[in-house]
């Protein structure tokens, strides 16, 4: 239990241990710990940031969706209106076309009727003259009475 040379031996051992610990044990371990702490802190803040980004994105998406829906509703409304006008226009145009065709038909028929009437009148005139010729052959001169016949024809 006396103090002896062991003291020197123990002191040397202690110094060597402390030196070894300071050189080869402490720095790598404390570095690893500090780096991991930093990593964890970074990870946490990144997670927080991501969460915030996500929420913002979510909000943006909701807004855009709302806008898109509104636009879609507008477009549909417009399309409906446009469809209605097109149908109405078409109907209008159909009416006009029909009237035009009908009018053209009428005009043609009228013209034909006039032509035929003219023709008939001419033929009647010829017939009348022929008839009159037959009658008058016996009693009157053709040239002397043609004005009467023409007047007759004109009255037809």
């Amino acid at each position, binding site marked *: 239990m006396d*103090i*002896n*040379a062991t003291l*020197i031996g*123990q002191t040397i*051992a202690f110094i060597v241990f402390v030196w070894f610990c300071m050189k080869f044990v*402490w720095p*790598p*371990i*404390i570095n690893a710990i500090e780096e991991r702490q930093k990593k964890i802190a970074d990870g946490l803040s990144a997670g927080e940031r991501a969460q915030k980004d996500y929420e913002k994105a979510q909000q943006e998406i909701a807004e855009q969706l709302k806008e898109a829906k509104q636009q879609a509703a507008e477009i549909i409304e417009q399309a409906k209106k446009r469809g209605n006008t097109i149908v109405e226009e078409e109907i209008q145009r159909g009416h006009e076309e029909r009237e035009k065709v009908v009018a053209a038909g009428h005009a043609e028929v009228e013209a034909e009727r006039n032509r035929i009437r003219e023709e008939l009148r001419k033929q009647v005139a010829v017939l009348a003259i022929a008839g009159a010729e037959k009658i008058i052959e016996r009693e009157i001169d053709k040239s002397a009475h043609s004005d009467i016949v023409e007047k007759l024809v004109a009255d037809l």
Partner: protein
Amino acid sequence: MVSGEQTATEYIKHHLQNGQIGSGFWTWNVDTIVWSVLLGVLFLWSFRAVAKKASTGVPGKWQCFVEMIVEFVDKSVRESFHGKDKLIAPLALTIFVWIFLMNLMDLIPVDWLPSAAMYGAYWLGFVDDPHDVYMKVVPTTDLNTTFALSLSVFALIIIYSIKYKGLKGFTKEMTLTPFNHWALAPVNLVLESITLLAKPASLALRLFGNLYAGELIFILIAMMGLFQLPAHFIWAAFHIIVITLQAFIFMMLTIVYLSMASSEH
């Protein structure tokens, strides 16, 4: 476990005797040196294993444990010692773990290792009587170990004082406190020297006293026959606290002394 030829006194004396080589001052307590170096190497080897593959990723169980201790020591150092110093933290770690491991030898039943050494040496033919072999397995129950530690710390206290305050500042502190008058310098010197010397003495004696007393009680318990089993258990359970606390106190006081040495006041 009192063997037939031994009286109780002989048994206790036998247990409290170091295995020694040499004579006079140049006596070497072989058991103290061998066990403490073994434990120190165990500490450094196991911690070095972590340090070598220390990764910032997910740590293994052993790495976690080592990191817990390192962080605990680091925190203790940071709380008391302000300023940057490469030595203090590893010094504190070495002191804490090494002393803890040496103290821990106290929990091994007192007869196991000495008996193994005694009869091992007898059977191998090194000695004629197994009782000629002495072995104390707890290095911290040897004053040489505790003083080796505390005197190293004492040397560091002086080195730090001079490093941070300068030789002049250190001399001033030794001679002009607590009474700030040149005429009282001798009184101051005596007072301050006592304060300074009390630090290593108290460090060494506190650790030694606690562990020596604990060891002695274990030896006494070992002589109680069958009743020693529960008694040993109870004392061992209590002693775990002493072991840890003494290692912690030694570490904390080292840090405090060094931070006092390195700061003006």
